[in-house]
């Protein structure tokens, strides 16, 4: 302890590491750093999970099918494999969608080839073809996509040639596959990359229809959890900004196909979608900006970025007007809650961007972030994109296809001249840039990648946060110890939390969580206080 009674981070870390076998400690130590926002500290991320250590992470199939493709309503997503993989990814994320006039929505469905013994022995291509045919006959969808699970990769079914064959056969239905076997890569992240590649190859750029609008943007890495996208769509509409496509919250095939007609890509979740943005810039000349609509202040900041990109006085005026109006409401609401949340503490261990984005909301509540980390992010999401050239490509990343992208001679259009770009940059607009989480976190706070059970348990014990944010897998174990856990993947079945209205929802939600009296009931009155303190003294 230091003189203020706050445990010293270095000691906590040593303590945690001391319980690991030496080899594991050596490896884990690099993934657990004590932050210094100014000096650039390297964190180990996107490395394999150690067998036998319980991880938050899922597989690349989960990242591909569940995360990126899951929120698109009008693609029939067919899992090629035994039943479990498909079943478990069936509506488990809380993406919402608003089917258009055609009502086409396959999200409540779980399609699987449900492979049996004989398919494993003799191959499953025939079954796959028949399943695609049946799905086509029943639904006549615009697109069918195939997702390979682990066993499929090993028996060598060629899903891509099946896709080509079926696509030609149908003529009016796009069929394409994702080789996203769960053993590829080290986490969901590999699946995001695979999903990005195939979306880009098979959908983006298929339809040149330009539906008009002066300010045309795509929103990338927004998945409409809890209805976030609905709020954002409304916000853009109110500002006269045309949202061409969202990757992939509340999205449709047509949106993806027309996305190359937008003039700006705005990235929310950098981890899961930056590949598409990079490829679109290369091929179609669309620049990208990092934005964040989680947090009222961050929303204001992001809107200003978009306005300054378009250099339009009317748009800028509208944005400023909206910010003034909305911020007044937000502040009014916050005023009442703030005294109850101020100086409370939080930890966030989740995903590949949320652990960063949500810090803004907690800061608005006057709360302090003691520790944070991602589940499947890479070093650039922690340290900023400037470290990209120094990241070593290991075997696990090498097996994910890097597609070669070239300028499209017909469809490439320069959105900004080099001079315009330079001028915007001189005004502070940063293109193709993400600073990562660590620069915005307090000195001496913990940054931990792919946190294990043991590590979170120790952090909770020593730092006693008022709230812990993670996923459902962590929820009940943390709550057993008397700390509320907020599920950040599913919004704990609440939300929306994006934009200005979302921020207010979040303030209220967190107020309820950190100020609930239920934890006080854990101790039964007949257990005498004396004996507890005695055992505490003994333990320390």
């Amino acid at each position: 302890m230091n003189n203020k009674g706050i445990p010293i981070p270095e000691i906590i870390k040593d303590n945690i590491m001391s319980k690991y076998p030496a080899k594991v400690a050596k490896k884990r130590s690099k993934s657990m750093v004590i932050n210094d926002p100014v000096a650039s500290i390297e964190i180990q991320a996107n490395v394999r999970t150690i067998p036998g250590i319980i991880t938050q992470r899922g597989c690349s199939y989960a990242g591909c099918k569940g995360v990126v493709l899951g929120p698109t309503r009008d693609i029939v997503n067919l899992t090629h494999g035994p039943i479990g993989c498909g079943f478990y990814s069936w509506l488990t994320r809380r993406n919402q969608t608003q089917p258009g006039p055609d009502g086409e929505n396959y999200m409540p469905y779980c399609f699987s080839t449900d492979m049996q013994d004989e398919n494993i022995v003799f191959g499953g291509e025939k079954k796959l073809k028949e399943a695609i045919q049946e799905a086509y006959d029943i639904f006549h969808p615009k697109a069918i996509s195939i997702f390979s699970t682990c066993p499929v990769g090993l028996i060598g079914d060629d899903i891509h040639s099946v896709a080509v064959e079926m696509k030609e056969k149908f003529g009016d239905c796009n069929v394409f596959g994702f080789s996203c076997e769960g053993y590829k890569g080290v986490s969901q992240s590999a699946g995001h990359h695979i999903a990005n590649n195939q979306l880009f190859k098979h959908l983006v750029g298929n339809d040149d229809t330009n539906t008009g609008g002066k300010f045309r943007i795509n929103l990338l890495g927004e998945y409409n959890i809890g209805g976030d996208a609905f709020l954002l769509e409304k916000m853009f509409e109110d500002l006269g900004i045309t949202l061409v496509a969202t990757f992939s919250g509340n999205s449709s095939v047509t949106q993806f196909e027309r996305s190359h007609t937008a003039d700006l890509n705005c990235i929310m979740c950098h981890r899961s979608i930056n590949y598409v943005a990079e490829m679109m810039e290369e091929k179609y000349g669309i620049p990208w900006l990092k934005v964040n609509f989680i947090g009222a202040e961050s929303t204001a900041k992001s809107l200003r970025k978009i306005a300054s990109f378009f250099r339009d006085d009317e748009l800028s005026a509208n944005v400023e007007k909206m910010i003034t109006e909305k911020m007044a409401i937000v502040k009014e609401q916050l005023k009442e809650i703030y005294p109850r949340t101020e100086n409370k503490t939080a930890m966030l261990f989740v995903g590949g961007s949320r652990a960063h984005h949500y810090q803004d909301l907690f800061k608005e509540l006057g709360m302090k972030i003691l520790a944070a980390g991602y589940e499947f992010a890479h070093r650039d999401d922690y340290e900023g994109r400037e470290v990209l050239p120094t990241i070593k490509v290991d075997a696990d990343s090498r097996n994910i296809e890097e597609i070669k992208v070239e300028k499209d001679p017909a469809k490439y259009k320069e959105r900004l001249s080099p001079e315009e770009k330079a001028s915007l940059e001189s005004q502070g607009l940063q293109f193709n840039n993400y600073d990562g989480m660590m620069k915005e976190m307090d000195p001496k706070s913990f940054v931990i990648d792919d946190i294990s059970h043991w590590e979170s348990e120790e952090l909770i014990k020593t730092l006693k946060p008022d709230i812990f944010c993670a996923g459902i897998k962590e929820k009940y174990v943390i709550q057993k110890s008397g700390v509320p856990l907020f599920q950040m993947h599913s919004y704990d079945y609440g939300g929306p939390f994006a934009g200005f209205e979302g921020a207010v929802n979040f303030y209220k939600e967190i107020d309820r969580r950190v100020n609930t009296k239920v934890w006080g009931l854990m101790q039964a009155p007949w257990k005498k206080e004396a004996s507890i303190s005695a055992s505490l003294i003994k333990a320390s």
Partner: protein
Amino acid sequence: MIKTKELPKEVTVNSCNLCSPLGASIAFKGIKNCMAILHGSQGCATYIRRYMIAHFREPVDIASSSFTEDTAVFGGGEKLKNGIDNIISQYNPEVIGIATSCLSETIGDDVSRYIQEYQKERTAMNLPEIILTSTPSYNGNHETGFFKTQRALVEHLCSQQEKTEQFTAFINIISPEDIRQLKEIFQSFNYSYILMPDFSDTLDGGSWKEFNKIPPGGTSVDEISRVSSSKTNIEFSICINSKISPGDYLFERFNIPNIQLPIPIGIKATDQLMTALEEITNTTIPINLENQRRRLIDAYSDAHKYIFGKKVAIIGHGDLVYSLASFISEVGMIPLICSTGGTHEKLIPLLTQIAEEYHYPVPQICLDYDHDDIESELEGNDIDLIIGSSKAYKMAKKLKKPLIRIGFPIHDRFGAAAKLTIGYQGTRSLLNEIVNLFIQIQQDENPVGYTYQ
């Protein structure tokens, strides 16, 4: 009318089956001080944890040997050994349960050899029991995995021994509250028993004073090793294949009689349990249970007017479907459609027999069905109620039919772990739920809104 799929369908839409290692994981959770590891890629373990946690609302740790691409090609021996080492150093369990996944089965990984090697290489260490269960999901579903694992446990831990005045009960996939109910029934008979796998505490525990790496509770290794000294076994399944039945194994190897009983939902099925217990313990049914039975009969007659003649569609795993159909018939409702994702041919004569007994047409028996097939069956039928898991919600909403949730998974209602449906008591609480649902419907539909029903 017996329906297996008319046209064999290659695409499964909204399956009724979960995968085999999930069943294995639930079974391992019922073993004291046990850690399960799934041999394959980490995604399966993560998904299975996620589903179990959502259902039970409890912590569930399942490790993985975390295959990577080269493991998938060259075999998972090193990863598995490494994983076991790490589990031991973190959790120090008494039992490590290994369930294989589709991936390790597909590459034909020789896991028993790895275990032998591991035990040879680490002779200096005090190793936990290592139990292997082979659970490829392209051959079987969650029920299969659940029973296979029980069988693997007794195969591994039991040896010939003197018989004692004791019985063993192998349970089905029921709720923690159901397990507690079952234990109460057994205790009322005042006779020694072993229940496995007992996940009533591990998957439905209290808050913790201090951190528990492995939640307390479960059937211990010692108890399982004494299973072969039981005089009789009760196995709560009438559908499973003999090859995966732990009771049949114990009969073949140690000549212990195996009484296969339905999951005790309803008077008849619970009576069967009572009769078996009377026989085993050589006593008569204790007064408290007899009183419960009388109260239940009383409730049946009181409930009659609300539910008589209501037509029901039942969806679940084989044994659950049978017991629910039996109960539903007892209270005067009609199971119109009985559907399961499994392929239990045995269900056909069993359900036919119930229909004959209660004089209604044989229900549509749908084997190897997915929710989408069931939905199409229901479309043309005039049913009043669906009984199924949370996965039946989509069709219930679409068809505007009420849904009572039983089975696995239940993730859109609170309290799956506390759901009581077995024994006379459990049947009564299930009956209450059904009756109240129909009263509610009646109230909602009536403009006056009578409060006295």
